[in-house]
């Protein structure tokens, strides 16, 4: 067994994840390297979900009965946990959504309907980057089409990093909002937040950070980031599907208009007009994903107990090892940074002219689950002139042995199509 400095005790951790014992395709042990798409869930989270439904299930906020009080306490308790996890100044700044995509659309829509000084309209500009996930592109394209605002973006350098050389031309006095990804889900790149935030603050633009690939893997401190909004998603960080988070600065949440209307988000309703509850409820129309929020709270507990810094260290060691081993494979080209510095544990690559679909299929046959395609970041593929990539992504339960399995698997792919 390969021994790397900084690794977690994966033997113990893997026992928490029932699915990792799965055997696929006639006896192959599952090697799950598709963590950037979604993570697996520890028993601790599944137990909490089950307990919620078996003991306390009720609708929240409006009940005087015991189950409703328990459910409300669990749901609002999850908000406390998430707030602590991201070091939010106030629990009321944590909005539960269904996924990161809803969180990002929520911001785009708030800004489209906002009054001055936040309003995005035809005289203003929106800035994103060429390495965004589609969920941080399309909402801004829609906003731009619907308001007439101009959409601009930062391009990429050859080695998979943001090209900030013309930052003063990209972010200007007209810029109302700058939205960018903290860790790219295709390149693995960790972006330089400070430089972008400083320039945005200089021109008075709001900053939105897509932390979907950061929250699962590193300590997230919304105060240190100095952003105005931070979005992420539960299913990638050991939580259930169906739950996302939008953190926003309190005064913005107070000033900005609601997005979805309905139960829970109101103060008082008459047929003629309605007033809205204070944030976060203003932005949580309808029965929220109660069990899923509670499950996310359990996931946050789980990750915190292991320690986000320890997880980062583990993944860094693994990435260093994986990059090295992958670069030994003939014809393999990493799309993105080719060292482990300032990058996460997500590695995209091409293998000669073998199409990623074929790479993925042959790996799957060996029990190795990777993702292939454009990873909802097609502009990156266009930028590097490739149709798609194969992507291996690691998490706290991933091991050097799984890296070895991947490398062997790729040899097999090469032979198969050789």
């Amino acid at each position, binding site marked *: 067994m390969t021994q790397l400095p900084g690794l977690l005790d994966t033997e113990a951790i893997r026992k928490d994840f029932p699915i990792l014992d799965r055997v696929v395709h006639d006896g192959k042990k599952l090697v799950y390297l598709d963590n950037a798409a979604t993570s697996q869930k520890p028993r601790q989270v599944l137990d909490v979900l089950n307990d919620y439904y078996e003991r306390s299930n009720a609708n929240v*906020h*409006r*009940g*005087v009965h015991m189950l*409703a*009080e328990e459910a*409300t*306490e669990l749901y609002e308790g999850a908000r406390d946990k998430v707030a602590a996890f991201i070091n939010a100044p106030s629990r009321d700044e944590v909005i539960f959504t269904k996924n990161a995509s809803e969180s990002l659309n929520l911001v785009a829509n708030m800004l489209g309907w906002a009054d001055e000084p936040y309003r995005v309209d035809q005289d203003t500009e929106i800035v994103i980057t060429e390495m965004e996930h589609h969920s941080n592109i399309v909402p801004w394209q829609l906003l731009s089409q619907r308001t007439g605002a101009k959409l601009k973006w930062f391009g990429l350098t050859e080695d998979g990093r943001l090209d900030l050389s013309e930052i003063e031309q990209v972010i200007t006095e007209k810029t109302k909002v700058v939205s960018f990804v903290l860790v790219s889900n295709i390149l693995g790149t960790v972006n330089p937040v400070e430089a972008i935030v400083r320039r945005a603050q200089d021109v008075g633009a709001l900053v939105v950070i897509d932390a979907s690939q950061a929250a699962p893997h590193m300590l997230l401190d919304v105060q240190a980031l100095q952003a105005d909004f931070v979005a992420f998603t539960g299913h990638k960080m050991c939580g259930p599907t169906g739950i996302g988070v939008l953190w926003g600065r309190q005064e913005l949440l107070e000033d900005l208009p609601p997005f979805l209307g309905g139960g829970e988000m*109101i*103060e*008082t309703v008459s047929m003629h007009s309605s007033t809205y*509850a*204070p944030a976060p*409820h203003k932005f949580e129309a309808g029965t929220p994903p109660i069990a899923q929020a509670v499950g996310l709270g359990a996931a946050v507990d789980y990750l915190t107990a292991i320690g986000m810094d320890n997880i980062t260290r583990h993944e860094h060691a693994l990435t260093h090892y994986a990059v090295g081993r992958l670069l030994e494979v003939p014809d393999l080209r990493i799309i993105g940074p080719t060292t482990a510095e300032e990058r996460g544990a997500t590695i995209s690559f091409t293998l000669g002219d073998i199409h990623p679909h074929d790479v993925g299929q042959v790996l799957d046959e060996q029990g190795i689950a990777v993702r292939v395609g454009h990873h909802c970041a097609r502009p990156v593929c266009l930028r590097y002139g490739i149709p798609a990539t194969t992507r291996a992504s690691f998490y706290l339960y991933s091991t050097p042995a799984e890296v070895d399995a991947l490398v062997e698997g790729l040899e097999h792919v090469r032979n198969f199509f050789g």
Partner: protein
Amino acid sequence: MKLDSMYQDVILDHYKNPHGRGLRDGDAEVHHVNPTCGDEITLRVRLDGDTIEDVSYEGQGCSISQASASVLNELLVGKELAEARRIQETFLHLMQSKGKAEPDDAMEEVLEDAIAFAGVSKYPARVKCALLSWMAWKDATAQALGETAGGKTA
């Protein structure tokens, strides 16, 4: 029976025979709503320098929210602002204690009848009922003193 800890006789008495109910002249008026249950209160404060001359109110709601407004009237009218604030803070502290604050003699001296709400603090859904009039009073007082631009909060 555990319920009795919430529905103390003092509370039921205030509910059935509320003190100072009705709207009279004031320096500021606020309207507060508890969006989770629809309880509403309109409350006015009249100050004479640092002294609370009157707190008048009108509203609809459960026994807890109604009794709490009545107790507030009884407790605060005639008090100096500083003293009233101390009472309000003590009450807030008690209500947010989740049933864990042990009311002692000192607290009882400050809160008088309002100490009867200790049991309510065990029922999260009802804490907001008990606090409705107190939050309204705080808001109205700030307005009367010209500290805020007015408007309602929940």
